[in-house]
């Protein structure tokens, strides 16, 4: 029996997920730039719109499937997961370093390290304070939610190390996700008012924000030239957070709340 044309069509799509991903993302970017040019007259950058469409699609995908990988949990769109996965993302982000001014990196190296430590301290403090406001009183919970406010990777790693409960772990992941998404969406809007227009401020931005996906997408939508500088500091953030969270920050929180 000859398969129907529809079956053949879906069979081709199922087998070539990455090709479908390239096509769909290409269409999305085209649509986003069209909207940017025609409807916002260039006021909102095309890539910011494209990223917003991506996030909206991700929410829809999560709502439909109940999974945690956005549209990639829809079997037909699994290829988007490969294209937007760590390997492709890191390959293209490292490629942006080609042509980076090495002396810019060295020149801003010190302030980059300062911003990294300050950013981590700040996130832990802000996240921890909100946890206290919402009635969490034990050191593991406060530390874990604070760690989630650093990134959604630091949260569960810290939480596991300090034996926080599993609902607190989930909450810390959610906090980190909210942060990443806010950074993606808000950065292009706020960039002019925070002076985010040169390599040095991009390194500070990467260090203070720290959330890799947020920083990378936020800077891409602001000015792609700044991406490698922000990524350079942000890439150390999660590791530093996992180092300081269960040790220094847990110790500080415990010495304040007592248990």
């Amino acid at each position, binding site marked *: 029996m000859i398969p129907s044309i529809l079956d053949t069509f879906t069979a081709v799509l199922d087998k070539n997920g990455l090709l479908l991903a390239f096509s769909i993302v290409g269409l999305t970017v085209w649509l986003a730039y069209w909207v940017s040019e025609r409807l916002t007259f260039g006021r909102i950058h095309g890539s910011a719109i494209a990223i917003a469409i*991506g996030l909206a699609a991700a929410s829809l995908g999560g709502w439909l499937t109940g999974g945690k990988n*956005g549209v*990639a949990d829809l079997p037909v769109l699994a290829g988007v997961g490969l294209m937007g996965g760590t390997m492709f993302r890191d390959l293209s982000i490292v490629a942006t370093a080609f042509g980076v001014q090495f002396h810019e990196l060295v020149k801003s190296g010190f302030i980059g390290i300062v911003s990294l430590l300050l950013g981590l301290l700040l996130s832990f403090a802000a996240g921890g304070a909100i946890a206290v406001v919402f009635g969490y009183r034990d050191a593991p919970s406060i530390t874990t939610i604070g760690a989630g*406010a650093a990134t959604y990777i630091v949260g569960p790693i810290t939480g596991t190390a300090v034996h926080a409960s599993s609902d607190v772990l989930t909450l810390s992941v959610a906090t980190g996700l909210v942060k990443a998404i806010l950074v993606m969406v808000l950065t292009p809007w706020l960039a002019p008012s925070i002076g985010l227009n040169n390599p040095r401020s991009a390194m500070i931005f990467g260090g203070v924000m720290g959330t890799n996906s947020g920083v990378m997408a936020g800077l891409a939508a602001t000015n792609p030239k700044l991406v490698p500088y922000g990524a350079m500091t942000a890439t150390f953030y999660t590791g530093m957070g996992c180092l300081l969270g269960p040790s220094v920050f847990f110790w500080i929180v415990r010495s304040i709340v007592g248990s």
Partner: protein
Amino acid sequence: MVIYGTAILSGCLLGGYFLGKWMGNLVGIESDLGSVGIAMLLLIGTCGLLQKYGRLKPPTESGILFWSSIYIPVVVAMSACQDAYKAISSGWVAIIAGFATVALSFVIVGIMSRLPYSEHAADEK
């Protein structure tokens, strides 16, 4: 050959993953320590060396430049794979904690990027 550029790029990323993971293990964390940053430094170093000796031909460069120019679409795909539904449906603690952190961070970036600095001061540290 274009593949030379992509090979250099991939090699640098593998090197970065390896060194980042190794450093992470060294300080005892279940996460890598700056693998992408290390890979970037490796790439800058390698290309700098090749350029110095005139071995970085335009086709080789294009094997790197393609990947850097595909960056925004890759980020769009990445954003489509975020657990955005969880973020918006997880309740007020996460939303307020995330929002407070981001607001505060933007303020700090604004202040820090306006700090006057001299190159001399940076050299000393």
